[in-house]
């Protein structure tokens, strides 16, 4: 089996598992829905400065909900002991990492699509004219988030106070990602073209590539017993 098919198998395993219970996906979507609604109460659209914080609201919903999902990712594996099984397969550790990461990315993206829809409705934002650049920014941001979130989830699943530990690990590291994503999203929703957010895109790509490489190499140390 080559690399791609190994990764695909791992993703498929997580996907079918989730499809049966849909537990994680539903929790993530409900949670992000709640976040959007709460922000709607706090900052009703139509109030003066709301436009400036709208991209922030969207990303807060993405991030908190995404953390929830990623915490489950390895939490479930650890509780059920299936991580051992996975490690026994003749698959490189880095490959397991990529498989898990892609799975997390897909789930987080599904949640984000749903969240974006709700967000557009409740905040009267029309994403369609700028859909392509918006999706690009969201994809780059989500990718970076799942890249670090996956390896930290593997670590925090083994610690006390799992979810708190995951947040403490992810947030400081994700700061440049969050800044870049929010700023770029804001510019895009304002109708600016891609060339104006060039520096933010560079940060996003640099973040994604750097930490993908580092996490891929470091993952083997995290899951060995």
């Amino acid at each position, binding site marked *: 089996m080559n690399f791609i098919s190994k990764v695909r198998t791992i993703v498929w395993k997580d996907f079918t598992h989730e499809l049966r219970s849909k537990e994680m996906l539903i929790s993530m979507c409900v949670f992000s829905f709640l976040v959007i609604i709460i922000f709607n109460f706090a900052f009703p659209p139509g109030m003066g400065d709301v436009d400036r914080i709208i991209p922030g609201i969207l990303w807060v919903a993405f991030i908190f909900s995404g953390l929830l999902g990623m915490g489950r990712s390895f939490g479930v594996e650890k509780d059920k002991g299936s991580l051992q099984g996975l490690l026994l397969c003749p698959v490189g550790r880095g490959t397991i990492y990529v498989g898990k990461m892609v799975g997390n990315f897909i789930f987080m993206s599904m949640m984000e699509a749903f969240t974006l829809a709700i967000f557009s409705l409740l905040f009267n934002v029309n994403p369609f004219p700028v859909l392509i650049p918006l999706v690009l920014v969201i994809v780059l941001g989500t990718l970076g988030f799942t890249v670090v979130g996956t390896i930290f989830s593997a670590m925090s699943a083994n*610690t006390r106070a799992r979810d708190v530990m995951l947040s403490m*690990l992810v947030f*400081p590291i994700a700061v440049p990602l969050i800044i870049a994503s929010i700023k770029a999203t804001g510019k895009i929703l304002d109708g600016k073209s891609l060339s104006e957010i060039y520096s933010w895109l560079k940060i996003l790509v640099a973040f994604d590539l750097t930490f993908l490489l580092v996490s891929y190499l470091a993952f083997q140390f995290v899951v060995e017993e």
Partner: protein
Amino acid sequence: MRRWVSIAFEFSTLATMLGALYAIFLYAPIEKTMGIIQKIFYFHVSSAFLSFFAFFIVFVASILYLYRRDRKWDILAQSSAEIGVIFCTLVLITGPIWAKPIWNVWWTWDPRLTTTLILWFIYVSYLMLRKMAGEGQRETFAAVFGIIGFINVPITFLAIRIWRTIHPVVVRSSGISITSAMLNTLIITIVAFTLLFFHLLMARIRLERMREDCGEMRALWEERDNR
């Protein structure tokens, strides 16, 4: 021989620190625009430099631990991280104390100060990870996080800088005119702080080694008791 070196080291730490204090208060001129409070600068910058140096040591020690699996690298990483957090805290405390009388705000979202804040969080999380992780995995997890954390710093600094140039800061943080006397004073202070850093680092490493030995002894003793 070792005793002699240790005493010489302690003495030079004290001597340079006294020398730095002399330089700061009696040798360096008072800055024109800011007045006497500018003298916080020497401690502030030295602490920042040392905390960064400490985290660099954590980075290198973490890599060495992952490759060599020798506990001594882990002890070095842990000790350096603790002292780095101490110096980082100092930066974050002296910064606002300096800012308040000059610019009338406690916090400026200056790229360097903000990056220091994030750096502080990263290494506090590093220490928390060490506390929360289990026996065998603690060292490995910490090492991985130490590496990722350090690599994150330049990226974070860049992102914050781009953010701040788009929304220019109302107050500029490097509004100091430096004379050569000030530069000399800064260098002396940095040297003094570096010696202090190593002094604290040695003490912390010694403590950790002692704790390990004590733990081993206790385990052997209890085993003997149970027989």
